[in-house]
């Protein structure tokens, strides 16, 4: 099901889609058919809005990600994501990805935005460690963190049950959204569900023991990882640094509690989901400050009777000028948080209320 077909089905759209699939379907495997469906969707919107949308070139040379690993400490690398929104320029490579060298093999945290990214990541991990992949963890179900899964065996991929359930419900929608925003970088990408459900616990990789802690707040299920050997703490998207946090599936109160818990874990280095890895807790404090600030601005705007458009135009605190995508993410957060404020905060006025 397409992203918006439940809303509108323009006349003639079905016929167009089918004709296009006939033209380009050469193999019979379901993955290929699904891809052409998305291509067809993209093509359809270009035909309808020819003057406005850049063309989607099927014959263009494949795009390539250049992964630049930063060494964090002995045997641990981070591939930093761009401090940007997902775009056709960055191919959706905006989230941090971590590679551990362990005596059992390479351990990877998050797989990036697309099949092509995942394949480059798997190769990089083998090159850096000289070993095969022992384990892949997913911190949460957001598309910039999980669509490289195809490069790995499903049984290698571990995530909390809540992450797997979230992908089952929202994965297809996320895939469609990624095709629309990242474009051709997504070619061949299909959702792969993790084969291993994990809870809070420890996994032994010989020289390294990696602790899993299940939390929530950024989404309904956020995985935090801690490497006992190095003291590296991976916060996933519970922690952002110098880039505004995203809230499409957030529970702000829960998130603040999880941040307090995260800050209580002694660590040598904190790796946020987006932004630089640092010692100390700057990412935790900044994420908390951001959530407190936007929650207050948006709640006050609602209480004053402002519409969503007016709320989006409200000023942000001076300190947020240094944060990448502050205005962009604030506007998104208005969209995420306003409906609940309206549902809870506007009184019932039906004449025949029991």
């Amino acid at each position, binding site marked *: *099901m397409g992203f918006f077909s439940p*809303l509108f089905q323009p*006349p003639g759209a079905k016929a167009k889609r089918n004709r296009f699939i006939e033209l380009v379907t050469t193999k019979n495997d379901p993955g290929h058919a699904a891809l052409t469906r998305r291509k067809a969707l993209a093509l359809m919107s270009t035909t309808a809005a020819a003057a406005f949308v850049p063309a989607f070139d099927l014959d263009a040379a494949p795009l390539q990600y250049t992964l630049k690993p930063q060494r964090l400490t002995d045997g641990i690398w981070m591939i930093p994501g761009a401090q940007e929104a997902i775009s056709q320029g960055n191919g959706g490579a905006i989230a941090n990805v971590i590679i551990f060298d362990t005596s059992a093999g390479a351990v990877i945290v998050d797989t990036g935005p697309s099949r092509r990214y995942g394949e480059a990541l798997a190769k990089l991990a083998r090159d850096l460690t000289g070993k095969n992949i022992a384990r892949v963890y997913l911190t949460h179900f957001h598309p*910039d963190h999980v669509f490289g899964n195809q490069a790995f065996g499903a049984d290698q991929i571990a995530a909390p049950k809540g992450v797997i359930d979230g992908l089952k419900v*929202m994965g297809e929608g996320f895939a469609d959204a990624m095709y629309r925003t990242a474009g051709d970088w997504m070619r061949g990408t299909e959702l792969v569900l993790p084969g291993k459900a994990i809870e809070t616990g420890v996994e032994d990789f010989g020289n390294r023991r990696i602790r899993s802690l299940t939390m929530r707040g950024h989404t309904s299920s956020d995985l935090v990882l801690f490497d006992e050997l190095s003291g590296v703490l991976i916060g996933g998207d519970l922690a952002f640094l110098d880039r505004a946090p995203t809230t499409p599936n957030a529970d702000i109160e829960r998130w603040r509690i999880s941040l307090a818990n995260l800050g209580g874990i002694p660590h040598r280095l904190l790796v946020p989901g987006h932004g630089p890895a640092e010692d100390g807790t700057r990412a935790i404090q900044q994420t908390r400050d951001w959530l407190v600030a936007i929650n207050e601005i948006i709640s*006050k705007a609602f209480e004053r009777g402002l519409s969503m458009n007016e709320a989006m135009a409200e000023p942000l605190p001076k300190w947020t000028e240094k944060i990448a995508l502050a205005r962009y993410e604030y*506007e998104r957060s208005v969209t995420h948080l306003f*409906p609940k404020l309206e549902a809870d905060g*506007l009184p019932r006025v039906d004449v025949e209320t029991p």
Partner: protein
Amino acid sequence: MQRPPHFLIKHISRLSLFALVTMMACAPSPSQAEMPKDPLDSTMWEDLSKRFFGTAPIVFDDKVRVVVPSLVENQAQVPVTADARALRDVKKLIVFADLNPITHVLTLSPRKAKPYISFRMKVEQATPVRAAALTGDGVWHVGGVFLDAAGGGCSAPAMARKMADWSETVGQTQAKLWRELDGSARVRLKVRHPMDTGLATDNTPAYFIETLKVRGSEGKALADIEMFEPVSEDPTLTLMLRLPASTINVELEARDNNGGLFQSSVPAPWRQSQAQ
């Protein structure tokens, strides 16, 4: 259910517009020269302006503002504000989106209201969103913006509504009124309704609120709103009323295309608390 003929006309006109798009480059219409140039440079403009304005005079006017977000987070719920408060004597304010399968979104007749409406709409793709204000002299003042529909990739997908039992909740209304310092009153209201377009692949028939009447003391008309299928599920509106201080309640009456009638009454406080 009352609208099928109307629908049909819309669909036919859209199909013919597709044909028009491809022909435009080589065969400009002769009437093009008489029309003011569309600042948004939409291929649909000529046809749409004929449909909405006929032969009435049109001016593109910055006094009619359309506010949309810089990105579309959820295509099912795009917040839009149409604001013609900078004009005097506005009789009608219509909102339409050139490239939506159903272009006409709503019409506000601001009888004792400011020519201003904020709401949420569905968009299928990037499209111009226009507001046109008809002033007492018979001139249409047109403003608009281009809405880029490519949203945040992390966005929550617009999930198909599960077969929720709408009969339980349809028509439930929530609202609140704020007295403003200039003596006007701001109303925010939300009416539970699926607002089905009739175009979904699952053959759900069109089912949407067609009219919303806003009335003051003794049934005095404050505003009338005509809504169409592109208005989002659970229509959530912001209006600005010129409300006498003596008004105690504002009455709302929404009607859908299945004959559903939903009435509610919004208390109008004497003066808005300035607390906080």
